[in-house]
């Protein structure tokens, strides 16, 4: 009689009450999966993935990345505008533009991705 009463009480408990821990774990995994998916989408979509040199494929070049911009001096937006101020700006501007023009970035002839460069084709280029 007593055993039947206990079983009856146990059966009366809802599914939620009987499996609360399992539901908690499942819910936690689902929430964390959703958060990871959102963050990975943001990471890939924002362009951060392309700037992240800590990725495995970039080990060989990681050390060559310029850390900070110690040699990039900012120009003051406050002050008089005379020959001295313009010369000072020219000096800063020319220094950086010279760096940029030193190498034809993302160029190359033939392109490094052309079939000729990759040894796929002898003459024609993509």
């Amino acid at each position, binding site marked *: 009689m007593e055993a039947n009463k206990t079983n009856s009480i146990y059966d009366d408990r809802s599914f939620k009450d009987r499996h609360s821990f399992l539901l908690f774990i499942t819910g936690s995994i689902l929430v964390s999966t959703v958060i990871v998916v959102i963050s990975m989408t943001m990471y890939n979509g924002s362009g951060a993935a*392309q700037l992240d040199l800590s990725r495995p*494929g970039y080990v060989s*070049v990681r050390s060559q990345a310029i850390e900070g911009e110690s040699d990039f001096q900012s120009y003051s937006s406050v002050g008089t505008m005379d*020959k001295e101020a313009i010369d000072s700006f020219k000096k800063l501007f020319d220094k*950086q533009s010279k760096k*940029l023009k030193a190498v034809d*970035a993302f160029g190359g002839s033939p392109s*490094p991705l052309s079939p000729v460069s*990759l040894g796929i084709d002898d003459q024609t280029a993509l």
Partner: protein
Amino acid sequence: MTIFKKLTVISLLSAILLSLIFIASARAVSSNVTDQQIQRIRENCLSAKATLKQLHASDALLRVNRGQIYESISIKLMSKFNGRVANNGLDNSTFVSVTNRYNLALDDFRSHYIKYEEHLSAAIAVDCLKQPVSFYDAVSVANSDRIKVHSDITKLNQAIDQYRSSLTQFENNLLADKESN
């Protein structure tokens, strides 16, 4: 089985069949790869993959280092100088116009580089021994994306040159005004 169910099944099968035909024809149109090229892709598969991986890494470094300089030129030099010119009550419209063009080119560079990197990564992931045609197509897409990135770099450099020549013009005008006063 009712006529309605039979019709549904037939329609679904037809749709699948048509889709497969379209996909096959699209692939055939997109790939103008000769048998000789397929053979060469298979022969040079390993070296081509190594080249792509090396390019992927070196371009990433270029993107990071060059990107920093291009961004800083806009924020730390151009915008600041434009502000200083305006603060002195002088006309900065030419500088602002060039800066806007520069910033647009910089936005294009950022977005085109994302696409290029994604497509290059996709090309690296293709098995060139088993899927030489897909590999050729993927590399072709990445190549055209890289050309776009290069075009953005050219536009940025042109804007820098325009800004510099505007600066010379501005300096000459300023000195001429001071002399006349």
